């Protein structure tokens, strides 16, 4: 026992003696175990501070799917619309190939995440508009089919001139990819928002648009990294998406709901805030610089693309991980105010823990 502790205990004996003398009784608890007070079941502490909700049980493949799906959906829209309006056929074709490949990878990722992968077709047993998971499964299946049709038309065009089958597949594929690419690139925000997980649920209004714009930005990034660094149209889309992500990031920081703590604190907060910087101000600066630089134009565009893609990945992994942290919060589902726990911890600090 060191000197400070022994003098503390001597003082304590004096205090007990004084109380016994003055009050005729000592109103003190006995020895408290280290770590006391023990958790209780009460309206203030819930059921021994045990979490009410179950944690999400998705594997890390799911946030990866959110990324790949978000990019492919946007690539499908870019590939179809650029074919109709744009002057760069090479860019449009690349986008369509990537969309077809991406949607195929998406299906593989989702099936691999299932507890019973062999039963993946059960997803298409029913269509339930009230289930975002059901809607998403159908959208993914439809988009994959249209993206494949679109790509098949491109391949046919290189072999046969003016084939009617190719025309049919092209029209159907391009239309389908545009229509279904719209929900496909952002439905995952609805998917996680319409759950009981407080941090996701709190952002149901912004998650779909944030995930959507992040998908669009990574689509632009993928095209630029495949060599399309001269397209001004792509740069404009990238700038727009990055500007939106910046605004969304500021909006998140300005909202002070306690449900959002996992997006600002701890490892998940670090990931989401990093995502905000990598997909917001950094690509904006690089893209603007690329407009004025003659020598490093290509390099700057590539750097912006890499930043956007990594930012999008961080965003998906950050938000999914934040859901796990949020599910452990026992207070929010029980509507227990934040300060109750602070009372509890201040009570704890008053109690000297006995050791050795």
């Amino acid at each position, binding site marked *: 026992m060191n000197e400070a502790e022994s003098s503390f205990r001597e003082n304590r004996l004096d205090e007990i003696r004084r109380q016994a003398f003055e009050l005729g009784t000592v109103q003190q*608890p*006995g020895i*408290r*175990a280290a770590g*006391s007070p*023990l958790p209780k*079941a*009460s*309206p203030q502490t*819930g*059921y*021994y501070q*045990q979490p*009410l*909700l*179950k944690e999400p*049980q998705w594997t890390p493949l799911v946030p990866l799917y959110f990324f790949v799906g978000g990019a492919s959906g946007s690539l499908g*829209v870019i590939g179809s*619309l*650029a074919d109709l309006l*744009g*002057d*760069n056929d090479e860019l449009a074709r690349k986008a369509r190939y990537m969309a077809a490949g991406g949607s195929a990878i998406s299906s593989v990722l989702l099936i691999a995440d*299932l*507890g*019973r992968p062999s*039963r*993946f077709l*059960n*997803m298409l047993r*029913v269509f*339930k508009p*009230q*289930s975002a*998971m*059901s809607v998403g499964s159908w959208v993914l299946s439809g988009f994959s089919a249209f993206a494949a049709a679109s790509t098949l038309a491109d391949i046919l065009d290189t072999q046969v001139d003016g084939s009617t089958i190719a025309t049919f597949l092209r029209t159907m594929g391009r239309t389908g990819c545009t229509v279904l690419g719209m*929900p496909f*690139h*952002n439905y995952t*925000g*609805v998917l*996680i*928002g319409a*759950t*009981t997980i407080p941090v996701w649920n709190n952002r*149901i*209004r912004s*998650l*779909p*648009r944030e995930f*959507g*714009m992040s998908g669009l930005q990574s689509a632009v990034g993928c095209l630029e990294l495949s060599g399309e660094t001269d397209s001004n*149209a792509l740069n*404009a*889309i990238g700038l*727009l998406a990055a500007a939106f992500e910046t605004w969304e990031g500021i909006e998140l920081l300005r909202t002070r709901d306690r449900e959002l703590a996992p997006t600002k604190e701890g490892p998940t907060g670090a990931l989401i805030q990093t995502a905000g910087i990598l997909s917001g101000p950094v690509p904006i600066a690089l893209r603007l610089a690329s407009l004025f630089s003659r020598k490093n134009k290509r390099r700057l565009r590539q750097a912006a693309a890499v930043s956007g893609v990594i930012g999008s990945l961080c965003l998906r992994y950050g938000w999914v991980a934040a*859901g796990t942290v949020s599910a452990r919060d026992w207070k929010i*589902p*029980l*509507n227990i105010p934040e300060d109750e726990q602070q009372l509890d911890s201040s009570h704890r600090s008053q109690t000297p823990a006995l050791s050795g």
Partner: protein
Amino acid sequence: MSGATDYTGIKPGEVTAFLTDSTLCIGCKACEVACKEWNGISADGYDFTGWSYDNTAALGHSTWRHVKFVEDQITPGIGGNSAQQLSWEFSSDVCKHCEVAGCLEACPTGSLVRTEFGSVYLQPDICNGCAYCVISCPFGVVQKNEDDGRAFKCTFCTDRQKAGLMPACAKACPTESIRFGRLDELQTEAQVRLATLQARGMTDAQIYDPTNTSVKGIHSMFIIRGEPETYNLPPKPEVPTIYLKDGWKSAAFEAVAMVGAVVASFLFLGRKG
């Protein structure tokens, strides 16, 4: 105690319910054991929670009944464990079989269905383990068994009910703390019981049945003493599908904005020659 006297007389098509009365529960855990034996659920292991005599901890894929131990006025240490200072409440928790069920709405395979008894049933031969129901249950009941790959929860002993028998937990309960019967009859019975308890001076007794939320009521009602938060029962549970409209609206706006941005960019900065 022969089988004949246990015949409930309830036929498929009639809505059934549990009424779990914590004022009668003695914490024997017979319901947990009966449930595991009848349904053939694996053991949970020998884990000690350390925070109370409740070592079952929570409902989950292998725990469809869970007796909660609300131990009050514990002051640990010398002189703090005297029986006079201690009050115990027990309450056997179970799947709520919601009127509007989050898990049922979320299930993309149609594995989760509404049965002929009004309960929510997970068909294990359909479930593909997507785990979306897990994060859609406002009561944290359904869970995926990582070893098996599928999600599991209380079946309301639909198999027994079809044969005119009461669920295993209700049959095993020695104090009739777990009552089983027709929903409307038990709702009346709960009110009568509550009045009796309050007349006896248990003014803190109340019925837990969140009918005023989007869950629209549950088929496993509880009579508890004190506040629902103490038992980890959410005071205002909501079915997450009520947020879908906001979500899809946001998605629709963003999708139109994306198409607009792509169209405008290619028209102004890279139009077909």
